[in-house]
């Protein structure tokens, strides 16, 4: 899958319907909330709590798709539907998600504040 970090059409549409200023706040909210979701995934993984893990992945998927972070959404979806990963591979998948989240957040912050004239 070869996607840009943020789908420009989705993001532009979000700005158009909710307002650019509002989207700046919304991205900030996501930047505050998303690390908690990720922490919840890791904690659930450590506690072998499958349902908690699935729910946290579900939330990240949902928000990722809202902002046009489609790759992030897709990775979260794979984890949501795949069940609790137990192996080292599973931990690597969550690490990869964390890295993608970081990319997505910095891209979103930049996009939200760049005024398209």
């Amino acid at each position, binding site marked *: 899958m070869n996607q840009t970090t943020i789908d420009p059409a*989705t993001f532009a549409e*979000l700005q158009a*319907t*909710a*307002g650019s200023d*509002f989207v700046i*706040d*919304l991205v900030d*909210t*996501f930047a505050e*909330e998303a690390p908690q979701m990720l922490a919840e995934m890791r904690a659930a993984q450590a506690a072998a709590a499958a349902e908690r893990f699935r*729910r946290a992945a*579900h*939330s990240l*998927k*949902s*928000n990722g*798709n*809202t902002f046009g972070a489609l790759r992030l959404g897709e990775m979260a979806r794979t984890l949501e*539907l795949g069940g609790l990963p137990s192996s080292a591979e599973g931990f690597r998948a969550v690490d990869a998600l964390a890295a993608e989240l970081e990319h997505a957040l910095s891209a979103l912050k930049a996009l939200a504040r760049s005024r398209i004239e």
Partner: protein
Amino acid sequence: MPEAIQFGRFEIRFDERQLCADGQAVPLGSRAFDLLAALVERRERLVAKSELLEVVWPGLIVEENNLQVQVSALRKILGPRVIATIPGLGYRFTATLEAPRDATAQAAAIAATTGSAVRLPSPASRARLLIADDNKVNRLLLGRTLELQGHHVVSVDNGREALDRLRSERFDLLLLDLEMPQMDGFAVLEHLASDSALRDLPVIVTSSVEGVAQVARCIELGADDFLHKPVNPVLLKARVGSCLEKKRLRDQQKELIERYATGAAAAEDRRDGMTPGGQRLPATVLCTRLRDFTAYAESEPPEETIELLNIWYTLMFDAVGSQGGAVNRMSGDGLMAVFGAPMPPADPADAPLAAVRAALDMVEMLEIFNAERAAAGKSQLAIGVGIASGDVIAGTTGAPRRAAYTCVGETVNAAAAMEVLATGSARAILIDEATQAAVAGRVATDTVIAAELPVKELAAPVHAVRTS
């Protein structure tokens, strides 16, 4: 204090405490004037009956009947639409004030009357929506989208709190997420379905759950619609609009059911709970129907028909209520009311007279309404009223709501038969022998012969109440 306020052909002169029509003073009782002034001052909102009673009869304990009598009196003068009855809640002044010649002076006058700046009524499309979603980004975005669409939005982050809010405040629609802590969306739907007060609340589920099974389960549990996240704003607007429209129709139906039993029936239920089974007691039954309504409904657009029925029911309910009767059954273009039951009047002989007076009020109100319709180039309406007195079997039948108060028996059948005769003849109000005997000497009546009626012969004497 404004000196005067004008609407239509009427002018209220506050300093003189005088109502004028076309510049001529209209005789109006002091209470009626106070009531009119109170409604005009509060015209931007619905005014509760208790509030009006306090304003018009300050410091006195007054029965609601008195208020209905005054409202009826005002309607006879101002026309039936100027004061709207909001069933179970109160009244509202609906006339538009005259466009002023001097806008500033008029605005100042209005501001002085209301004691504040003029507030515009909120548009009907603006609804109160509750969002339940544990995800903050989703909650904020959905709230923002709906606010931009003109709605008032309240948000909560779990199902438990959503239920608490729904039980303590009025909302028009719930937007419900499925995966939430404390109580998830499915459980909320189950609670709503089993709560008679919230069963009809429209619910749109918004979720990014995968698979049709979950969507199907939501619909089975009573959700009206399902929107996948991220929610498309255009789709959201359409679905919210459609849900609110459905709710409006359901509310109208509920309102009709609420109107099923007015004052007396409600008081009885409060006083000693339900009386299952039934009891035999003397009463007077009134049945009325709009003449040729089926033909009217087929020739007019449905909105016109519904509006007409609403006005007609309002007038008929007022006529019944102001004479101490209780509307017991409604059927499209007809209704049945009972006088003397479930709450017997001080003197049982008063019930027949009250019913006849209610019938006369009905005919008079309809005449005023017809004059308005004639002025608007609309067709004339006519009603037939049948009244019979005797024993009825009355009681609450099983269900916990007062709508289940019923009344059956020979007297009910006799009143229905009188109404059929009246609807098919030139006489507006027909009464049976027992009613005639009770009102003799107090109401002018004529004995009717079979030739006047759509029957070959009469099994029992029928009398007509003179209407003018």
